[in-house]
């Protein structure tokens, strides 16, 4: 489903970048216990999915290409 919702006049027209969305949705919002265990353990799961998707780019600040 790719419903395009009417955001009102002041929303940016371009599509929101997934990476910006994940910054906020995976780490933000009110954390409350749901009825499924997953919601309580959600933080761990988020870390798992983050590990799979996102690696820090901080390494790029280091001269890593000099590594063997």
């Amino acid at each position, binding site marked *: 489903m790719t419903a395009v919702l009417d*955001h009102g006049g002041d929303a940016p027209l371009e599509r929101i970048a997934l990476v910006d969305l994940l910054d906020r949705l995976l780490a933000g919002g*009110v954390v409350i216990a749901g009825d499924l265990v997953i919601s309580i353990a959600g933080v761990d799961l988020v870390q798992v999915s983050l590990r799979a998707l996102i690696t820090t780019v901080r390494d790029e600040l280091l001269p890593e290409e000099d590594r063997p």
Partner: protein
Amino acid sequence: MTGTPIAGGPADTTAVYLYGVARHLDPAALGDAAGVAGAPVRGVTAGELTALVSTVALAEYGEAALRANLEDLEWLEATARAHHDVVDRAAHAAPTAPVRIATIYRDDARVAEVLAAQGERFTEILDLISGRSEWGVKAYADPEAMRGDDIPDDIPADPPDGGGADPGGGLAPRAEPLTGPQPTGPAPAPSSGGGVGTAYLRRRQQERRRRAEAGRRVGEQADTVHAELADHAVASRHHPPQDPRLSGRAGTQILNAAYLLDEEQVAGFLAVTRAAGERLPGIELEVTGPWPPYSFIDTAAATPAREPGDM
């Protein structure tokens, strides 16, 4: 509202997905909003609070399925976008506290229970975010700024490391020393400072030092920009740097932060951001927003700015 029959399937195969909690929300504001998996969004109301929910299939949102699905980028994207669309639409109509993605309840009655039990907490959160929005600012250093070509070679040297020593300090010697004769061809005449290997290493070291220095300089600029922006916000929060594979962005991301703004701060904040971008060559600032205040729910983890009265 209790025990609302769930449309779309027997209760033991469905559950209720919670997007967020709004205060004084006019249900008409939701319109025909579709939630995750395209299901219609409805409100579960208790007093002045309205929980935004939709029905989901346990086959997709049950614990085991969620575990697998959350690691599926395509699924995660569809769910994240739907979650955001619902929260965003509500946030334009009334103060709305988003909840963490994939918070699932058995049925509407359970959601009503949670609203009643957590009402005070939601009220506190809603008090904090009412009339405020979140703005994201990312800064990128262009590759030239990161190379540090303009940095002289004579910046202080690291202690000599003996050429090719294990940087981790391990005891195992390298199988192939970086110095010494090349296996093929005649070696070029050695320079005055030593063999060709030594000259090569020196060049690499200088390059490495220039890059480290450039990284440090750029990091300082990012800190300066952040401090300036935080001065024009109610609160701020850093996100981890984004993976370029996800952002599709060239250049090194040196800042990824969120700022909570009062409505009347927005214009000034955007002007300050624009000015900073124009002032700093080699650094590009990117602004996103307004966002529902996702990053400012956990108030303990956010950095409050100075109170307006302090200034």
